[in-house]
């Protein structure tokens, strides 16, 4: 009970605040955009043909009405929350009247799939390899590996993706260049393997960046860890190195890594955005980018909302579950 009051409830309250602030910020900012979604739409509809000027005027009136863009900012904001609480994100402007929910439903599985797998892979791999290198830091291979990572670590996702694209889609055309899978969803090996094949390069781009980051953290933590008395003692007692790395070094450094996992989702989402654009990968990231340039408010809102809620919830869950990972006592 005490815990509920002193820890869980405030943490949940914080979650609510975080989402509220995040959503408000993303509600407001696009509305300062000079781009008017209605005009943008009309521009696209009439781009290649000649239309009577009067007709355009009439169309504009109809569309403003349909889009619900009348009323003050505050009214729109209130209306927005009213809809949101009903789970309705409104229609897309660019693709009126398709509901934003449909877009999210189409894109979310890809983004979530890409993000969770890449996050997990880079997280686990980074921790494992980083800890190994930290543990064997005087070995030659470890030093070579570390230098390598130092070079790839600061590379923006973009450049990694570009290089991968050039190498693995052109010089060695092993992987597809567009799309998320082959054929329609089915529980067949063929479909599933195509998901892996289509997702490989996008995933690799994110994994490389995420891995390097995690590697460097893990190495730093492991270096501190191996200086700890219990590792030194276990070494002295000739406890096998494998056991020391796994149960001593990694297990102990896991806590900051766990703590960090949810927060790093945000950075990974940024990576996903770039990578989706670069590889023509389905998902929310690339959609968001298009929506931003078309001032498709509702889509922007919908997708940022998803990522904010996703990341905030991720970090909430990690925080709430943290005690499971950490057997030590926390003083509060």
């Amino acid at each position, binding site marked *: 009970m005490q*815990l509920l009051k*002193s820890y869980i409830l405030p943490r949940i309250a914080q979650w609510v605040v975080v989402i509220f602030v995040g959503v408000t910020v993303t509600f407001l900012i696009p509305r300062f955009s000079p781009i008017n979604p209605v005009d943008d739409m009309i521009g696209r509809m009439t781009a290649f043909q000649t239309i009577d000027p009067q007709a355009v005027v009439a169309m504009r009136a109809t569309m403003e009405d349909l889009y619900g863009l009348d009323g003050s900012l505050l009214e729109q904001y209130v209306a927005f929350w009213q809809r949101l609480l009903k789970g309705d994100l409104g229609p897309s402007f660019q693709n009126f009247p398709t509901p934003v929910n449909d877009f999210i439903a189409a894109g979310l599985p890809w983004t979530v799939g890409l993000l969770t797998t890449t996050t997990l892979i880079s997280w686990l791999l980074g921790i494992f390899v980083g800890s190994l290198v930290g543990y064997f830091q005087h070995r030659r291979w470890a030093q070579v590996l570390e230098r390598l990572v130092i070079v790839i670590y600061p590379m923006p996702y973009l450049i990694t993706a570009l290089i991968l694209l050039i190498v693995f889609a052109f010089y060695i055309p092993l992987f597809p260049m567009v799309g998320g899978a082959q054929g329609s969803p089915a529980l067949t090996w063929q479909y599933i393997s195509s998901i892996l094949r289509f997702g490989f390069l996008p995933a690799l781009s994110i994994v490389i960046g995420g891995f390097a980051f995690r590697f460097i953290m893990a190495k730093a933590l492991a270096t501190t860890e191996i200086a700890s008395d219990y590792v030194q003692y276990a070494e002295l007692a000739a406890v096998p190195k494998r056991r020391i790395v796994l149960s001593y070094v990694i297990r102990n450094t896991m806590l900051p890594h766990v703590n960090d996992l949810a927060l790093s989702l945000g950075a990974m989402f940024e990576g996903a955005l770039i990578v989706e654009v670069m590889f023509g990968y389905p998902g929310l990231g690339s959609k968001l980018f298009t929506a931003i340039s078309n001032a498709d408010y509702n889509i922007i809102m919908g997708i940022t909302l998803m990522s904010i809620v996703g990341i905030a919830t991720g970090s909430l869950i990690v925080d709430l579950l943290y005690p499971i990972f950490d057997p030590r006592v926390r003083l509060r």
Partner: protein
Amino acid sequence: MSQSPSRPLLQIEELSKIFHIRQGFSSQEFHAVDHASIVIESDKPEIFAIVGESGSGKTTLAKMVLGMEVASQGILRYRDRVINDLSNKEMKTWFYNEVQPVFQDPFAAFSPLKRIDRYLYETVYNYKMVEDKKEAPRYINEVLSEVGLTLAEIAGRYPNELSGGQAQRVAIARALITKPSLIVADEPVSMLDASLRMSIVNMFRKLKEDNEVSVIYITHDLATAYYAGDRIAVMLRGWIVELGPTEQVLGNPLHPYTQNLKTSIPSINVGETWKDKIDLAVIEADEYTRTGCKFAGRCPAVMDICQDNIPPNVVHGGRTVKCFLYDENVDPAKKTYLTPAAT
């Protein structure tokens, strides 16, 4: 509750400090200091030793006295003023003038990036101990001489350029600058070498005599506590289990825990090695959550009543003991002795 005719310097009554600790999904209250009472009189300076095993609440008590932690319950007054109620300004202008600390690790007590004499000058200036800033070196030198140092020796030095003993002397000198009435020294010698230890302890004795400063001397080294302390409080899991003049308490301990402590001091006298064995099967950490007497698990004289009842503070033989053994109100029939329980 001890009534004294004169105004006490420090009055601690039924003082508690409660922390919340969390492990996994559970959280519990935890009394680091549990209804402790101590009074230090103002008319006669003394060295008041507090001993007890690690984690028994000594530091927490000291921090409350110094105003660094807020007490959770109970009375905590310095010269009749409630310490926790003092305004920031009063703390600075009055309280810190009166009460000063000495910390355990002399090297941690000074910023390694700053020259050590800076703290002496700061203290002199901030408390306006001299009329004219030019007077400061002379004043500081005076204070330093009390601890056997000269300003020339330490001027311009960084802490790590001094020995532990020197640094601790500077720390004590710094505390003396405001001419305090009370110094709270938390394990001031435990980081020091055996060879330096005695010189510091000797100095406390000298300060008490010459400067009329009372010292709360916290240690887990019973021998120095006995050597320096006028009165002593023995702490166990937040409780003060026995309090009284040092010679009485350590010479003739009443509380089973104190007795235990005393017999456990390894003697260097040849042939005085321990013969009897003590029971090891107790996880002391469990003692915090005990409902009755916290020592019941290891007590050789444990009784029925001890299991679920908190023993009273009994004034007995010139001291206060927290033990049912000396409680006349308890029906002797109920004092059924048990063999020590190993839980």
